């Protein structure tokens, strides 16, 4: 063996596959010197006439894995025989960090998990914390949060559409979509000052009310955005190559979709009309008039159609939200939760004490636990929080929709070609920040 430091690692996957008891065979590799050599090579199998299989790593550094997903593919020619996803390359320990942060301090971490939907996560977390605190938010805040969530849904779907187009080889809709996403980010920048990592909510309200004339900008977006969707659809929906590349790909039947725990557009494309906004309404979504698009075949094409239609429905919701946005305060009137205005904190004794307590110690919820789910662009996004009565959660856990959705990828890609793996992977709409957390 090689000299110097020798480290033995076990690699769980190899073409030799399963041991007689059905467990994956572990092949020890010795790492030392400058190259890895298999020490106890498994007994050679009889070569089949159909040739060898090739083991190929898609990722963790690959342009089409949307981050650091690693798919180990076993290929027969270009046909996928086996696919094993490996996650964890972006693990940041958000949930553990959350146990050492006050509720308002966790909000910046929620920006960073599903970073395409950051303002939606902010809202979702704030909803969870507010249920723990047992408080009701103001009317204006509710509508503002709906606007935030729907803008965020559109932005996320636009990225999804663009990256999927690129994965399938069409570059132009990507940039058209990004143009509109830029408009959304400009709006968010005008509102909360940040574009990607918004940290827009606080327990009991928002970080800021919308500025003057902001609604006019939003209305402008609502006017122009459907035209962009029309243009993108003209490039794709009836394009023979696009249809040929996506129809019948990665089909999930309704039963399978439910059994795998899929949610969001993936589940709806399979024909199951489950939308948290309709089934477990939050933020008064039951009072908005919108439709839930449902697919029939559960293939990549249906997922595309469902997402495009969801963007149009989001525009409908935005229109209604703009109309009903009431005047009034954004934050709840509770000095134990919400920071007092700056001028009061510097001039009134009481406000200063509240400010001090809020910042140094943080608001304390009663003892209890709660699970709040929202319909994120990727599916059912849940936050589970346990409070032990202190100002920091005893446990904070995320239910990441793309993690659950990703678990179906081996089922979806097997038997398809290498190119299809990319298309199917794109259709799941994964964000590794959310999956690895």
């Amino acid at each position, binding site marked *: 063996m090689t000299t110097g430091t020798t480290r033995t690692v076990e690699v769980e996957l190899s*073409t*030799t*596959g*399963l041991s*007689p008891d*059905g467990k*994956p065979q572990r092949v020890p590799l010795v790492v030392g010197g400058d190259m890895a050599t298999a020490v106890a090579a498994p007994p050679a*199998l*009889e070569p*089949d006439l*159909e040739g060898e*299989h*090739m083991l*190929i790593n898609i990722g963790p550094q*690959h*342009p*089409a894995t949307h981050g650091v997903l690693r798919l180990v593919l*076993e290929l*027969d020619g*270009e*046909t996928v*025989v*086996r*696919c*094993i*996803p490996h996650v964890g390359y972006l693990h940041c320990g958000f949930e553990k960090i959350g146990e050492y942060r006050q509720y308002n301090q966790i909000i910046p971490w929620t920006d960073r998990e599903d970073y395409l939907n950051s303002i939606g996560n902010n809202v979702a977390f704030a909803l969870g914390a507010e249920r723990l605190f047992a408080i009701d938010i103001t009317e204006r805040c509710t509508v503002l949060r709906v606007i935030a969530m729907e803008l965020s849904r559109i932005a996320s779907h636009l990225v999804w559409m663009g990256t999927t*187009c*690129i*994965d*399938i*080889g*069409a*570059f*132009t809709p990507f*940039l*058209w979509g990004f*143009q509109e996403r830029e408009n959304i980010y400009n709006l968010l920048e005008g509102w909360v000052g940040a574009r990607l990592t918004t940290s827009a909510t606080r327990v009991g309200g928002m970080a800021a009310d919308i500025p003057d004339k902001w609604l006019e900008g939003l209305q402008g977006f609502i006017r122009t955005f459907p035209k962009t969707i029309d243009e993108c659809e003209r*490039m*794709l929906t009836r*394009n*023979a*190559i*696009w*249809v*040929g*590349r*996506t*129809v*019948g*790909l990665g089909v999930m039947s309704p039963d399978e979709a439910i059994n795998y725990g899929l949610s969001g557009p993936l589940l709806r494309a399979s024909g199951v009309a489950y939308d948290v906004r309709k089934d477990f309404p939050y933020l008064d979504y039951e009072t908005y008039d919108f439709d839930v698009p449902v697919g029939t075949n559960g293939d990549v094409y249906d997922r595309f159609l469902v997402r495009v239609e969801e963007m149009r429905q989001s525009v409908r919701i935005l229109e209604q939200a703009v109309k009903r946005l009431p005047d009034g305060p954004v934050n709840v009137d509770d000095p134990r939760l919400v920071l007092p205005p700056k001028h009061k904190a510097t001039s009134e004794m009481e406000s200063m004490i509240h400010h001090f307590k809020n910042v140094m110690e943080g608001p304390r919820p009663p003892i209890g636990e709660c699970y709040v789910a929202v319909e994120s662009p990727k599916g059912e996004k849940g936050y589970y929080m346990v409070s032990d009565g202190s100002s920091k959660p005893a446990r904070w856990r995320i239910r990441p929709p793309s993690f659950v959705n990703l678990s179906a990828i*081996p*089922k979806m890609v*097997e*038997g*398809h*070609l*290498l*190119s*299809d793996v*990319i298309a199917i992977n794109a259709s799941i709409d994964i964000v590794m920040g959310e999956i690895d957390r």
Partner: protein
Amino acid sequence: MIEPTLILQLPHPQLPPSTGVFLIATVIKMIVIFTIYMVGVAYSTFAERRVSAWIQDRHGPNRVGPQGILQVAADGIKNIMKEETYPSYVSKALFVLAPGIAFVPAMMTWAVIPFGAPLPTLWGRIDLVVADLPVGFLFTLAISSLGVYGIVLAGWASNNKYALLGGLRSSAQMVSYEIAMGMSTVCVLLLAGNVSLNEVVQQQAQMGWNAFLLSVAAFIFLIAAFAETNRVPFDLPEAESELIAGYHTEYSAMKFSMFPISEYANMITASAMMATLFFGGWDIPFTKWDNTGDATVLKALLTFGAFATKVILFVLFYIWIRWTLPRFRYDQLMSLGWKVLLPMALVYVIVIAATVLALDMAGIARGPMFGAILFALNAVLMGGILFVLDKGRLISPAYSRLDRSRVERLRAMATGRSHLAGRGTGA
């Protein structure tokens, strides 16, 4: 005092030059063509970037020089200054050779393409083609198929799985489409009665452009040319999102740069072939004077301009398509080539051969009347083909892949224990 023998030796501007002049003229033509060609290649990369930017609501490179026209030079300098990397385990000789092999054939094809009406000079009439080979486009077909070696070797020598897959894909793709391409040019042969490209240009000047007389062949040739040049929607060998960069994943600096250069060179060559075979070559449309009468300098310049315009339009067409369409999948590409284009081309050759024979037997002279009848026939055929193509049935959807049981069998083969098939680790 001029000696009479010298006057006798001085050739007439309308007659072919002497051998010495011919050699010198050929060398000059080679240098001029090479220069124009390389500049054209450089600026087609620039055009690609600017046009794609316009399509996508962007600005594109506009910082180096006015409107960014010096961007090309900056790119070239950058590529030359970059580090040449040699990954370990590459087969070095082939690794270095591959970019060259990819590049040379694209350029050699230009030798036989006529780019203008003959130029009269004091030393004789110079044909504006580097080598007016009697075997004409048979030469282009032969040479252009050599280009695939560069790509296959690059994929093989890189010792990289992505590169290997890219090389495999491109060899299969180029071989398949070459056949359809060759079959479509047979029709041009039938009509021109000659394989010399100069003859083809003359024939089109008499009867009308082959794009109208042989629309189906032009259509097949166009599609096959896209596949031959590895352009979207046939860019599978370097499918960025699947194979990182395909066959040139491991290349860097100027060696890498040779592949895009050869891609654009191929693109220009294919555009020139398209213009020559089907769009009249250097023929100026709606005029007769450029094909008849004595050669003049003005005529040579104008016809060269006409040819250049046609080539540029086709290059822009390539770019336009690239930024509009998604990419085919491998099996769709193969079935399109073998099951659609090749049979279509074969049947079309028979139809055209029969028509030409019938028209000749009916005593119709090869002229505008002959062309009009062919055009009518092609309009009907083309309408039918587009009607069928528009149904979108020719691109097989994803169902036509392995069924479940075959996947299980392949897995069992890998594990070597068929009784365990179905209890996979992944699913």
